[in-house]
């Protein structure tokens, strides 16, 4: 029978099984945090793009006819794409959460609202709308949605930075755990390292054995973590869709190509981090001996 060539390092032991679990869990959390960061970024961009050219004009002391006239006036302004006066039904729908289905008393003066959509590159559109309405004899207040978007953008940026910080923290933790585990593995296999060392193995050769071992461990653990993250995201998406409009509390996750790329890259980064940590730990440890 032809003798077989086993690895110079023994098969995995219980310590590596525990490390596999820890790295897998960290990769799961890191992947989830990365997906959340990306979703937050995407949502912020989509939302701000949506409100960037939006204005709401309030006309005081005007009826529906005056509002329609004002809307026509605004439609002719340079930079305005659409201008549309809200109907009574639309105004009542907006007030319904506060005043109920019975609507407002008929004698209560309620401003008429005009929704204006302007071109994104239109300059000073808010001021020009205000001037045009004033010149036409309307008492109007113009609300640019972009001013509100600024606050939301800042909040979403903070959320994004927090998510990225969590990703960085989890990655650093994974690397530290792997480095610690590699050092423990090296101590546990000191006999093997000693025999190889005395047999004339170069430091790089010995480090390479541990690098290969931990590269595969990181890759496999990262794959499991990424797959669990994928399953979690799929469940959250399914829950979000089944909850229809009442899913606002759930993160708006998706599974498009960049999301899948994040899940594919996670195990590779975990493997590379494990390999790097193992290599540095072993080389540093070997330099302490002759």
């Amino acid at each position, binding site marked *: 029978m032809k003798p077989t060539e*086993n690895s110079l390092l023994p098969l995995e032991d219980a310590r590596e099984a525990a490390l596999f679990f820890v790295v897998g869990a960290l990769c799961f959390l890191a992947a989830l945090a990365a997906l959340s960061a990306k979703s937050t970024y995407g949502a912020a961009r989509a939302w701000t793009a949506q409100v960037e050219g939006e204005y709401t004009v309030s006309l005081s002391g005007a009826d529906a006819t005056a509002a329609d006239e004002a809307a026509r006036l605004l439609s002719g302004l340079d930079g305005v794409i659409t201008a549309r006066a809200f109907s009574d039904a639309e105004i009542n729908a907006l007030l319904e959460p506060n005043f109920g289905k019975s609507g407002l008393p008929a004698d209560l003066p309620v401003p008429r609202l005009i929704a204006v959509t302007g071109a994104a590159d239109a300059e000073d559109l808010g001021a020009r709308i205000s001037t045009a309405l004033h010149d036409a004899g309307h008492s109007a207040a113009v609300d640019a949605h972009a001013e509100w978007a600024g606050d939301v953008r800042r909040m979403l940026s903070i959320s994004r930075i927090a998510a990225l910080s969590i990703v960085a923290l989890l990655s650093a933790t994974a690397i530290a755990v792997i480095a610690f585990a590699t050092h423990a593995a090296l101590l546990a296999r000191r006999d093997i390292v000693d025999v190889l060392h005395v047999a004339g193995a170069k430091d790089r050769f010995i480090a390479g054995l541990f690098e290969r071992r931990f590269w595969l461990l990181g890759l496999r653990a990262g794959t499991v973590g990424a797959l669990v993250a994928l399953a979690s995201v799929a469940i959250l998406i399914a829950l979000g869709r089944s909850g229809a409009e009442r899913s606002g509390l759930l993160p708006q996750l998706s599974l498009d190509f960049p999301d899948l790329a994040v899940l594919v890259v996670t195990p590779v980064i975990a493997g590379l981090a494990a390999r790097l940590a193992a290599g540095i730990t072993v080389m540093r440890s070997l330099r302490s001996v002759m």
Partner: protein
Amino acid sequence: MTQLRPDMFDEAAVRLDGVSLRYDSTEEILSGIDLVLKPASFSFLTGASGAGKSSLLKLLYLAQPPSRGEVSLFGRPTSRLSRDELSAMRRRVGVVFQEFRLLNHLTVYENVALPLRVMGRKESQYRRDVEELLRWVGLGERLHKRPETLSGGEQQRVAIARAVVTQPNLLIADEPTGNVDPDMAARLMRLFYELNKRLGTTVVIATHDLGLIRQIDAPVYRLADGMLVQENGEVGPTARRRTDPLRAMP
């Protein structure tokens, strides 16, 4: 097979100049040792337990730098060698450890082939040699066994086979016959002698076995109180000119 050449004797195989060794802040284990072993010499190292034999051997197989002094192998001061050069130097040294240091997750065959793998040799190049060597030491039927399943004597023979498989320039053995019967001890000593005589391997054997020492006409160095004293004979190539010291052995 390596042939003996005149230039092999130009430089000492081993040279210790004023070598001392202490671990951390302890007392010196070895103190001011001077030693020259010529290439192709055969020497014994003896001394009481704890005298520092294993520490001296560690210096010789480059597992430990001296606290003071210089260890030179094959004419090169080891303190000036880079890490890669030290690795290359270690490949010229075969070591038989007292406690064997076999790797239990590898088979007997793989343990013996390990130094050849470290050297980057392909299995197709060495398989036959390794199998032949293992047959020669009486382990031809144990190729695929794990060391932990072998007796102490068998493990010792695996350790010896691993040390000599690369045909090293310097062979260092720490109590190499401690766990084998007299017949096998003589067989193993013949292997060391053949390496010494035919390949010019410099052999250093640390042993308590006075019977073994008495049977072989070779210089004996005794370690006592950290000092090294030569008890008999000459060191160096002259050893090769003696008659076969093992002729009287079984």
